[in-house]
């Protein structure tokens, strides 16, 4: 028993310190078992499907997935269009700014949701490092951001979902251009709360508040590519614990609790939480362009 304890402590210490071979060994085991898991999953799927439904589950599931994809695409296109219009106006004012660069993507099916009882906010997708996916990359659907790539194996990857309230994201309010940090409400996975970096207007001027219903996107200062839609503002109020700070609640465009596919943006993320909100650099804020000289941005 003592020997087992020492072995466990050694393994824990090595894993926590990021000792490479430990992670490599775990990846190797998962990759080795992945084909076996796939076969077992195919064998078990009738039982799982029967458990989840009473009739015609497969047809309904396929139809539902197709409809959800189309709906997500439509919602995402609408949100993106609004964000683009706002951004485009600013880009017209500041020349030589790259906006929404073309980012290669990989779309993958969700092979399984959480395997344990404590990892509710993790899904596994069927593509991994063999497809160029790396930890920290943003994961989206047609409706916007759904999470970030966490653990990557050769042929699969784990995605930490937006519903995890520990996942902090730098965002920009399209209507005002302000940037802040937020996370999903632990009690309500469909609500994103921006509670850091936003100031309540001086003199309590309500006209300076962000408009309800306007779009929120990722900020350039976040760990993800800029301008990925998150959702729409549904409430704005004064922080009850800090009377100069503003809290913005956002209704997320995606319901990440029941995803059937996801798309990874193949752009390396900054694999750390942004500690301090900083102004967006891709879309200049409140820029004033002198008519004769143009922008120096």
């Amino acid at each position, binding site marked *: 028993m003592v020997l*087992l304890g020492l072995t466990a402590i050694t393994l*824990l210490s090595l894993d926590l310190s990021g000792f490479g071979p430990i992670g490599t060994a775990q990846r190797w085991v998962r990759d080795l078992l992945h084909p076996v898991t796939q076969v077992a999953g195919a064998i078990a799927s009738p039982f799982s499907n029967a458990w989840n439904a009473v009739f015609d589950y497969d047809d309904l599931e396929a139809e539902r997935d197709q409809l959800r994809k189309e709906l997500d695409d439509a919602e995402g296109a609408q949100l993106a269009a609004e964000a683009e219009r706002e951004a485009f106006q600013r880009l017209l004012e500041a020349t030589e700014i790259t906006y929404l660069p073309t980012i290669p993507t990989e779309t993958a099916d969700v092979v399984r949701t959480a395997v344990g*009882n*404590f990892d509710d906010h993790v899904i596994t997708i069927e593509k991994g490092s063999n497809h160029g996916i790396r930890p920290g990359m943003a994961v989206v659907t047609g409706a916007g951001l759904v999470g970030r790539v966490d653990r990557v194996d050769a042929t699969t990857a784990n995605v930490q979902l937006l519903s995890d309230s520990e996942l902090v994201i730098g965002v920009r309010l399209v209507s005002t251009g302000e940037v802040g940090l937020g996370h999903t409400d632990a009690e309500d996975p469909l609500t994103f709360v921006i509670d850091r970096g936003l100031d309540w207007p001086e003199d309590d001027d309500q006209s300076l508040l962000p408009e309800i219903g306007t779009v929120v996107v990722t900020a350039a200062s976040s760990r993800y590519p800029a301008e990925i839609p998150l959702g729409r503002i549904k409430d704005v109020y004064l922080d009850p614990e800090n009377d100069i700070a503003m809290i913005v609640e956002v209704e997320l465009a995606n319901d990440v609790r029941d995803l059937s596919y996801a798309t990874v943006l193949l752009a390396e993320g900054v694999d750390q939480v942004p500690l301090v909100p900083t102004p967006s650099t891709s879309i200049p804020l409140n820029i004033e362009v002198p008519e004769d000289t143009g922008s120096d941005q």
Partner: protein
Amino acid sequence: MRLGLVMLAALLVQLTVFVDVRFFGVAPELLSLVAVIGAFLIGSERGPVLAFIAGLIWDVYLPTPLGVMAITLAIVAYAVATLNEGLFQDSPSQLMMVVFLASGGAVLGYALLGGIMGSPELLRIDMFRIALIVGITNAVVTPLAVPAMTWALGGEGAMR
């Protein structure tokens, strides 16, 4: 060899069937079940080793650092084997009760140790509900798992 096959089967069922099939949102913990029954059947000397290996296999797929589930199951298995040697007559109903308590205890132990090891989100009030459901479902599955574990252990510690 047989034990490896049973552990692999438990892992595969866990990763496939019990991703979808959940009871009030909670899945049975088959590797815990293997560890507890194994310890019950073969005693405190080798039981914890079996449980440690089972936990290590499960650790590979869990978000916590490698070794958290392994040491949790080893401790639980040691307790099960020690209590069984001193207090119990091994009967199926007693084993189901032991599985209920030990599986629930393993869930709580995993959450506590995982919380200490940098995953504070595991320490939530919900863990008691999860422990209760895992205990019940594992106990229900026990009559199916005992023959498999008896076969895996070559008849060692076979129950009357």
